[in-house]
């Protein structure tokens, strides 16, 4: 089973900074739609092939502070989460504004489950 460390919204950047200074590599982030409860965002860090997973639970329409100023590599995955789930990140170093994959006319979030899709229809 996956061992995760809970994370709160205001710790996100501080934890990223701590790992960056500690020589950890950002493997990736994973956004999961958990229905009514909102989203879960996982931060996967790696050092010497040992992985650490942080779990951030947020309600829908929360703006998450971006860690891309710390880890430049996070910019693609944050833009991707914006495209797929509509999770907004503040201050991404290179913000595609939800159009990394999607065309400008697309308004529905393709990876979200029923609750969001209904609202937009």
């Amino acid at each position, binding site marked *: *089973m996956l061992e995760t460390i809970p994370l709160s919204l205001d710790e996100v950047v501080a934890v990223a900074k701590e790992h*960056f200074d500690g020589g950890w590599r950002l493997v990736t982030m994973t956004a999961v739609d958990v229905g009514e409860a909102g989203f879960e965002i996982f931060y996967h860090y790696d050092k010497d*092939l040992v992985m650490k*997973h942080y779990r951030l639970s947020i309600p829908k329409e929360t703006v998450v502070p971006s860690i891309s100023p710390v880890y*430049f*590599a996070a910019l693609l*995955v944050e833009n991707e989460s914006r495209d797929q789930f509509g999770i907004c990140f503040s201050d991404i170093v290179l913000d595609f504004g939800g159009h990394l*994959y999607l065309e400008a006319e697309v308004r529905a979030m*393709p990876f979200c489950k029923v609750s969001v899709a209904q609202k937009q229809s």
Partner: protein
Amino acid sequence: MARTILPFGPQHPVLPEPLHLKLTIEDEIVVEALPTLGYVHRGLEKLCEVRDFNQMVQIVERVCGICSCLHALCYCEGIEQIMGVEVPRRAKYLRTIWGELHRVHSHLLWLGLFADAFGFESLFMQFWRVRERIMDIMEATCGNRVVVSVNVVGGVRRDLSPEQCQWIEQQLIISEKEIRQLQTTILNDYTVKKRCCGKGVLTKEQAYQLGAVGPMLRGSGWAQDARQTGYAAFGELGFEPIVEYDGDSYARCAVRFRETLQSFDIVRLAIARMPAGETAANVEGANEDDTPRIISGNRGGIMQSYNRDKHHSITAAPPPDLDIPAGSLAAKVKGKPDGEAVTRVEQPRGELMYYLKGVGSKNMDRVRIRTPTFANIPPLLAILPGCELADVPVIVLSIDPCISCTER
């Protein structure tokens, strides 16, 4: 100085896949690079909500044609982790063999394309001729050439007979000899060095901070390879990553070339140490399901003979006749995955990560695929500024971009 914005891709002679870069150039020097993605986005991750978790094996294989076997391997290991299945040892070795053969053919493909990128077309054809031999091994042992479809949850669908193993070894000896003939050209040739040395330098610190993976990371002096985590049979085989220290395009090329030869050794070692036994385990999850699935990939014995025509100059020796008792490979999949898992394998392009979440239904709740090129694009954006426009194709190709992987 006047700045020009130059579109690079999505259609470009050097790019095998549609990557689009907006290059801001001053004279001949690139000052900024911005990527645009989305030309081959298919939303395969979303398909997990409609397809059965067993069917997803075939779907994740199609994320990327070149490393299909490793995608399936990573996915199956994740599901097995969630459902608590112990894969038979023989299946682990078989997975290793096919996975490494995939690495060989992917690296040979890349080495050819890379030679093509700096205009050495003859070398490109020579590498691809060797690759054809590896593709033949795939076809003979897996049933398909590229998307091999041998992994299933619980094990593998095909087995290798002793005769087949022997034939593979023979083929590998010939291929290795042919590759070694090309070694001096790709690694020591004046023109090749002129085009690659010192181009697109990624320093050791940068590589790690920007999250580079695979040959990109190892070319910059980090001895990190997901195979060290011991997935499949690597835990028993032992593994030492290949490292180069210069961090330029040449170092990445050298890493890939040496890894090709290393993979030959791993295949040989795995064949030599492969234990006898079952190739697929029965899968039983927490929830009982009344529809057991029988996997019997091998009803009548595989590969009796090879229909060889006299113009077929690639195969040196036809695989010998053989018979395998039917019904030796059987696995039942019962139950449904419930839980989360993160698995990593080393793809030819670098570390591949899967996050899998099942909620006790036959569909997965979330399948997240972090492919190596996805991780290698930020370093690419960091090394492009400052290089000459004429070097952009070589540098872009030196990360081995796979955009189908990236966008899924």
